[in-house]
């Protein structure tokens, strides 16, 4: 029963993925929505507004400074999560099994 449910959920998620992908803007089209909204503004005005010679940096550090702070926090969180999941559990299990082995040996 659970297997059927999980297959159904998988099918649903795949369908949602395909539907949302078809809604994405066309690549390499200068008249698509994202290419006409803020991108021209960044390309034309980033030098005067931020003083940065490179507008990738201007977007990364100035216009989207909060976003980059969030990205850094996400990386840090991912690191902490990995360390917490992998380190403590494995260490404890192995220590416990070692202890159990020792105790069995004594008895």
């Amino acid at each position, binding site marked *: 029963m659970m297997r059927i449910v999980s297959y159904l959920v998988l099918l649903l998620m795949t369908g949602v993925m395909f539907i949302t992908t078809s809604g994405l803007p066309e690549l390499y089209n200068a008249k698509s929505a994202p290419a006409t909204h803020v991108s021209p503004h960044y390309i034309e005005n980033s030098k005067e507004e*931020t*003083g*940065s*010679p*490179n507008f*990738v*940096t201007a977007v*990364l*550090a*100035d216009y989207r*400074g*909060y976003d*980059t*702070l969030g990205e*850094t*926090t996400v*990386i*840090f969180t*991912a*690191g*902490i999560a*990995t*360390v917490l999941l*992998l*380190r403590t559990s*494995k*260490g404890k299990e*192995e*220590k416990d099994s*070692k202890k159990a082995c020792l105790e069995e040996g004594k008895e």
Partner: protein
Amino acid sequence: MNKRFGTIVLDTSFRFIIPFIMVYSVYVLIHGEDSPGGGFQAGALFGIVFVLSRLVQGEDCALKISGTKAIMLAGVGTAIYGFVGVLTLIFGGNFLQYGALPLNMHEPERHAMGILGIEIGVTLCVMATIIAIFDALTRREEM
């Protein structure tokens, strides 16, 4: 992973390559403001230095940061980023408005220094996270 598996060829070429990777990483970090590159890339390169050292030289490698220290360092990196933002707030600008930094320089230079500050934070965070994840993955075999 924990025993050294380097032959003399691998060991010697490792010693030649490492300084170049380090210098390249610092170059990518410092030139991040006006050329491709920046904190994330520099952090990945510097993390690779430590991972390679551990892979080639084994447990008693020359360049070593333990997992606990690494995760602390990642926190410090994130804190540096936030601290630069708070610093600009204290000196009367908006959050992350680098022009407000109290440095005796022209506006574009202050801006560049602010970006360098946040990118150093990003570099530390990425580098330390790579080291911490690698350490957590290879730790199992130690016991």
